[in-house]
């Protein structure tokens, strides 16, 4: 499978403690890379900004049956977490089996294989 350079950049930003997101200078809509066009207003005025390293849990699920790449790792939990800036990100839960809705989690990444990256979230308490 082709490794997408934009995702490597995004993941390495998290790994380096310098995650980024995109904000529209025209309408304040927020988004994640690699967009050229604001999904809300259609202008090309997206600006890269620094993203917080913590977020709060918006939804979560514990997965018992998975795709081949993760089949040997079940069960595991996937969460969607919302950052203060407004963007949401999907990642696997670490250091716990379950989280509460609204709980604060720290974003991280794990490298899998040569250039594949897995986004993670860990409870901060």
């Amino acid at each position: 499978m082709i490794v997408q350079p934009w995702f490597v950049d995004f993941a390495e930003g998290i790994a380096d403690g310098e995650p980024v997101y995109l904000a529209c200078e025209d309408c304040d809509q927020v988004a994640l890379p690699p967009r050229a066009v604001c999904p809300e207003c259609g202008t090309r005025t997206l600006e890269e900004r620094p993203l917080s390293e913590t977020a709060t849990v918006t939804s979560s699920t514990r997965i018992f049956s998975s795709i081949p790449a993760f089949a040997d790792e079940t069960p595991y939990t996937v969460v969607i977490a919302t950052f203060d800036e407004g963007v949401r990100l999907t990642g696997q839960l670490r250091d716990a089996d379950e989280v509460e809705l609204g709980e604060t989690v720290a974003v991280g990444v794990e490298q899998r294989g040569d250039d594949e990256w897995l986004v993670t979230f860990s409870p901060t308490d």
Partner: protein
Amino acid sequence: MTVQIAGVASTPFGEHPDSSTRELFTDAALEALEDASLSVHDVEELYAGNFIGDVTDDQGHVGAMLADYLGARQAASMRTESACASASSAARSGAQAIGAGDADVALVGGVEMMSASGIEEVTDALANAADNEYENEAGLTFPGIYALMAQAYVNEFDATQEELAAVAVKNYENGVSNPISQRQEETDVESVLDSPPVATPLNLQDCCPITDGASAAVLVSESYAEERGLETTVSFVGSGQASDSLALQDRPDLARTRAAERAAEDAYERAGIGPDDVDVVELHDCFTIAEILAIEALGFFERGQGTRGAVEGETAVDGRIPVNTSGGLLAKGHPVGATGVAQIVEITKQLEGRHPNQVEDPTVGLTHTVGGSGASCVVNVLRGGE
């Protein structure tokens, strides 16, 4: 130009280990053409949905392959792909070709062979409908994505697993009376809750099965139907298709399907109707939560009220708005590339008064098919004769 449905057919849904993509589609297409009293040489346009054949069969160029093996080499052929909504896009494309006056006969359909591949391989292939980097690389499966939507819905509206399970109970019961249905056994709330967890809060019986199947419909122009003396009573009167963010994380409300709302609004406007005019519905219940989100997006229930449908019998065959009288994807089965036209087959039979779970005198029927977690949605509206 009015578009009419001259013939429809689905193969039995389930496991067809001795068949293949080309053979199964040919079975459905020949039966639909026979139902229409037309021949393979009458077909001018052929649009067919197929989603995972590139992965499972190592076969692309599926439109031409299907036209070839059907003996319809004169036809313009094309595969339509919009994940699980692929066949609905095929039907929409065929109706557009006739509506524009470009063709008189369009064969639309779809096919998927899923059971011969392992469950992990199929899960992997289906995951191609999700955002590869932001979702699959995080280990998110399709049931996992719908589970995140279900969890968000449960959190926002205090819904329960029992209320989700009621959708499976209703659709399994409908499936038992449908001869093509893959699942031929009823279930109850307790059995759904006791079935193995797949992705919390969804259990195995909250999820549609892995299905082989094909469906086809013959669309013709009104003038052609008159000229050939075809018996057609059902018309294709409106279609809407829309998009949303590919990844669930980019939607402001995880428990809401905006592509479906947009597609429905467009389809209602083109058909000149509103939700209250709809008499029977086949919709995309790939998971129990999906039916609840769909009946809200289509305007049959207020947001947060969709659980009432199955729990209080409002979506039963004899209810206020009958939903998935075929058994739906949950019981009838979900050969992903065929599903949208399979729904049209069921609605056509309802409007012609020949459905195994016949609704009393329906006039307007609707199909709703979702691609992926809702990044695409197609709504098609059919009208029966008076």
